[in-house]
């Protein structure tokens, strides 16, 4: 089977869709970045103006900083997920059911999650402050309205949303470790904690590295949840790169500048992915 026409018939629909709707727009985004364009009228070529403006734009760098903070939080939270997975994989009864319960938030749309957490964080009638008042906390904060708290407040639903996903991945990797290795360690007198940290953890390091890339790249792309929960506010305190780009284009009709920011977002994502992959590069595949 190597007839060109037959191959084309099978592969072209997918290839054309991916090429036209994913890759051509990426290139066009870089190109539109050279334009002064309001989205409706004609484009005027203005050279590197948008890109140099972006590099000097405090709001852009603030949003990049917030995205970076979220990436750090997400990476650190992997430790919690890993700990839970290690417990879950140590012959716990009902681990299958627990894993599925943990996964439920991951299935909800970010919009529904955002709306739900807006309600949870509601200063007077939300679940959180009602509980805090009950246990005697006076004047609990208006979580999403305070610039110093809002980014942390947004991170909690993100932690909540992705917990089940990462636990699931770690759990699957841990279950792949042959029992014989664990048994041998136990016979040699290793404690459960030693087995977890010295044997299981190194054996699933490959997957841990994959999840670090996923968490970092995922954080750079966060949009839906933040856009719905706070719209980047208050006072841009929760603005991230994607929400800043989106606002520029679709709220203020600054499509040329928005394209430039969108293209920078792509470059930053690619560079960061490359760096994280390099930093976590595995020298050899583990063979059992």
């Amino acid at each position, binding site marked *: 089977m190597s007839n060109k026409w037959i191959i084309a018939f099978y592969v072209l629909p997918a290839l054309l869709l991916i090429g036209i709707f994913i890759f051509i727009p990426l290139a066009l985004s870089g190109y539109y970045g050279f334009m002064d364009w309001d989205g409706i009228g004609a484009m005027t070529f203005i050279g590197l103006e948008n890109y140099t403006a972006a590099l000097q734009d405090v709001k852009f760098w603030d949003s990049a900083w917030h995205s970076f903070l979220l990436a750090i939080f997400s990476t650190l939270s992997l430790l919690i997920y890993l700990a*839970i997975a290690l417990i879950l994989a140590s012959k716990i009864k009902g681990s299958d059911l627990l894993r599925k319960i943990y*996964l439920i938030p991951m299935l909800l749309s970010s919009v*529904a999650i955002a709306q739900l957490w807006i*309600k949870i964080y509601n200063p007077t009638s939300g679940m959180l402050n009602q509980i805090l008042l009950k246990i005697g906390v006076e004047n609990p904060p208006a979580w999403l309205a305070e610039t110093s708290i809002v980014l942390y407040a947004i991170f909690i639903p993100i932690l*909540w949303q992705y917990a089940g996903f990462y636990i699931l*991945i770690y759990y699957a990797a841990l279950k792949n470790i042959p029992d014989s290795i664990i048994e041998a360690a136990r016979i040699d007198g290793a404690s459960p904690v030693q087995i977890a940290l010295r044997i299981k953890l190194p054996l699933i390091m490959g997957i841990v590295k994959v999840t670090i890339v996923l968490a970092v790249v995922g954080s750079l792309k966060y949009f839906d949840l933040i856009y719905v929960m706070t719209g980047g506010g208050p006072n841009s305190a929760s603005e991230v790169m994607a929400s800043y780009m989106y606002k520029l284009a679709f709220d203020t009709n600054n499509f040329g500048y928005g394209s430039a920011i969108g293209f920078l977002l*792509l470059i930053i994502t690619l560079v960061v992915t490359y760096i994280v992959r390099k930093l976590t590069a595995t020298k050899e595949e583990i063979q059992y």
Partner: protein
Amino acid sequence: MKRLGSFLLYLSLALVAIFQIFPIVWLFLFSLKDNREIFSGDPFALPSQFRWENYTKVWEGGIGIYFWNSVWITALAILFTVLFASMATFAITRMKWKLSKLVLGLCMVGMMIPIHSSIIPLFKMFLNVNLIDSPWSIVITYTAYNLPITIMILLGFYYTLPREIEEAAIIDGCSVPQMFFRIILPMTIPVMSTTVIINMIYNWNEFVFVNTFISSDHYKTLTVGIQNFIGQYMTDWGAIGATLVISVLPILLAFIFFSNKVVEGLSSSAVKG
């Protein structure tokens, strides 16, 4: 001592489970209450009477239209994605040609790129061909953006299919399309069902494309529809709760019935990325 240790382990796992599930329980509870009850201060009290009228009120108030838009757009995009991805995976794994590595590479990169880098040019493309504010722009975009992940999930399964079956089919005089549609596709039903459910979750929950390309109310899907809707019912928490429950219910039901498929799909989607 050992008992205490394992008690603490179970306790920590149970606390995580409570943290994961309680916000959703709370949502369900307040979707059946009225404001007076919600604001009275006990977040986990059962509703004094189950106010199902919250649900009928929002369904008839417009959520119904968004719901059906979500259903048909999701279904149609799944159909196209899984068909085209299966065809491409078949070509990649079964035919000898130079560019199959390239197609795989495009898929890998395609899974990673931020959609915000392509959304302005996409908007302009659809504007040029008059597809802005048409549900087709959404169906096409969903199909294209889910192809890479779907191909990656299918790939592993296709590699394990025995070639002898195909050779026998060819010897028996089967044409390539006959072989693909009558023999290969039916054999891949287990992995296809995994991709269907993963696509369903992605499409059902997608927000930014619909929010950008669709402006008419009668084409909006649930994720964007509930945004406007909640604005309308700003102070009626029961109605907002009912709206949110309706929007997440189909996925939760699918999860209850096909949880193993979801688990399988999510883990393979991550590891391949």
